[in-house]
């Protein structure tokens, strides 16, 4: 096949909504974009274990501890599925981790915020996972096969994450004054950052257009954000939480909630490294990666020795 035929074949697969598979020919820019998005997504899942992990030892009941631990474990699993999906494009996990440590690969800015009270665990499940789910549901239809399949599995597992978070918020809003204050405080701190998770408005982003054209992205940042806002505002009211946005209003014509201006300076400031936890998140990851090195070396050495014995025995 000539280069042109290959490109035509690729484009026709995309057009027919068929999946691109690892060994298929693909434009270099497509490979790069998918790989970047998958590794970034994988790193987000893994780094996201830390803010929630911050409360796992302090969970207030046996039930809460079990749920939180299982939830964080799921996130680790999501990271793993996504690393695997990314590995199909020929980069191995060691390299992805190296990129993370060197700051060449990013993760979601949201995990650079601290978890300061137990309600933050509720807010993360309800708002952060809630926002992530909206995005992930749409990504189940992404054009790269392994990515789409990982998303299907992840979405199935995500279904309890948001509910457990909302349950925590609801319970606290039903509790003592101190608990209500904690819940509202968490709401105030997590609401806007959750909205930022969808990324800046993509009205004029060339990046988005290309991604949409290749069906890597299936919906625009603004559309996804609106979807999230519409379902979440009502949930907040149901349990008596105030949405920290004085400009919030319901548009009777469009049937959508309209929000005030998002403070993108805050977003970029956190992305640039000035969140309360940027440094901690990465240094934690580096520390335990390094501490695990002897373990990985030991088991490789063990397996080489065992293979040698087996080979010798079979001669």
């Amino acid at each position: 096949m000539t280069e042109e035929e290959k490109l035509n074949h690729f484009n026709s697969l995309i057009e027919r909504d068929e999946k691109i598979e690892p060994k298929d020919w693909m434009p270099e820019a497509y490979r790069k974009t998918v790989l970047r998005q998958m590794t970034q997504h994988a790193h987000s899942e893994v780094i996201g274990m830390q803010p929630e992990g911050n409360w796992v030892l302090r969970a207030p009941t046996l039930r809460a501890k079990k749920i939180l631990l299982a939830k964080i474990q799921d996130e680790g699993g999501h990271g793993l599925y996504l690393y695997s999906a990314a590995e199909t494009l020929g980069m191995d996990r060691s390299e992805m981790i190296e990129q993370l440590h060197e700051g060449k690969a990013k993760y979601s800015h949201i995990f650079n915020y601290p978890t300061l009270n137990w309600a933050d665990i509720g807010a993360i499940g309800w708002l952060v996972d809630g926002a992530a789910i909206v995005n992930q549901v749409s990504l189940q239809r992404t054009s790269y096969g392994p990515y789409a399949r990982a998303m299907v599995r992840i979405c199935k597992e995500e279904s309890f994450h948001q509910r457990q978070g909302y349950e925590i918020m609801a319970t606290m809003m039903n509790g003592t004054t101190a608990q209500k204050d904690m819940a509202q405080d968490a709401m105030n701190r997590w609401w806007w950052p959750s909205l930022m998770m969808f990324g800046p408005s993509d009205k004029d982003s060339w990046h988005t257009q290309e991604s949409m054209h290749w069906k890597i992205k299936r919906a625009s940042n603004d559309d996804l954000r609106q979807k999230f806002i519409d379902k979440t505002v009502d949930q907040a009211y149901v349990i008596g939480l105030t949405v920290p946005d004085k400009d919030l209003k319901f548009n009777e014509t469009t049937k959508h909630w309209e929000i005030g201006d998002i403070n993108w300076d805050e977003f970029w400031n956190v992305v640039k490294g000035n969140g309360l936890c940027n440094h901690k998140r990465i240094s934690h990851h580096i520390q335990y990666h390094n501490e695990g090195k002897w373990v990985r070396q030991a088991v490789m050495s063990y397996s080489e020795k065992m293979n040698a014995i087996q080979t010798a025995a079979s001669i």
Partner: protein
Amino acid sequence: MTTKIELYNFVLRLADDNLILAQRLAEWCSCGPILEEDLAMTNISLDLLGQAEDFYEYASELNGEKSEDELAFLRSEREYYNHLLVEQPNGDFACTMLRQMLYSTYAKFLYEALLNSRDEKLVALATKGLKEVKYHFRHSSEWIIRFGKGTKESNERTKNALVELWRFTSDLFEMNETDKVLITSGISFSLRDIYPLWKAEISNVLEEAGLEIPNSENNIIGGINGIHTEYLGHLLSEMQFLQRAYPGAKW
């Protein structure tokens, strides 16, 4: 029945062992040597938490006043009956896996013996727990073998862990008034019966790993009588934080 208080204490002992070890393992969350093992350790922790919950539920039933969460979160250090081994700090990954192997082997024989208990509820809980601890034994013993035969460093680390932890192993087989009463009534059994089984199993694993049981005269005891190393208090103050800081709040 006159054995009720003893049974309650015994069930608490089982519950506490599971909870404290689960809490220790949960400390590894996001700190594992490789992502796969992070999830594996969480699975073990979740198994143990589940068992702890079951035992606390039973204890709460026997107690008649306190809920399982009150039992788990609102007792003081001296009222916890877990063994000293499970409260020991994680140390490095070799130390954690060794602690797991020593404990899982113990739990395996303990639950097997409890299958013959005259207390039906204990039989049911032991049956459920047994499947899980067998898997934990498999998982942890394989790691010990890999380490024993892996690199010089992994071998050394495992040896050090053995020295560190071995001194707390006789505590696992200590018995008190509770055991005496329960043995007589056919609810429990003498832990001396399972000691040789435990030791043989541990020796097997260590032999396959090219390691040896350390020569240690030390045996530090106290857990089942509520006498602990200093580590437990810190573990509890973290674990109990919310329950202590907001008395009466529902979570």
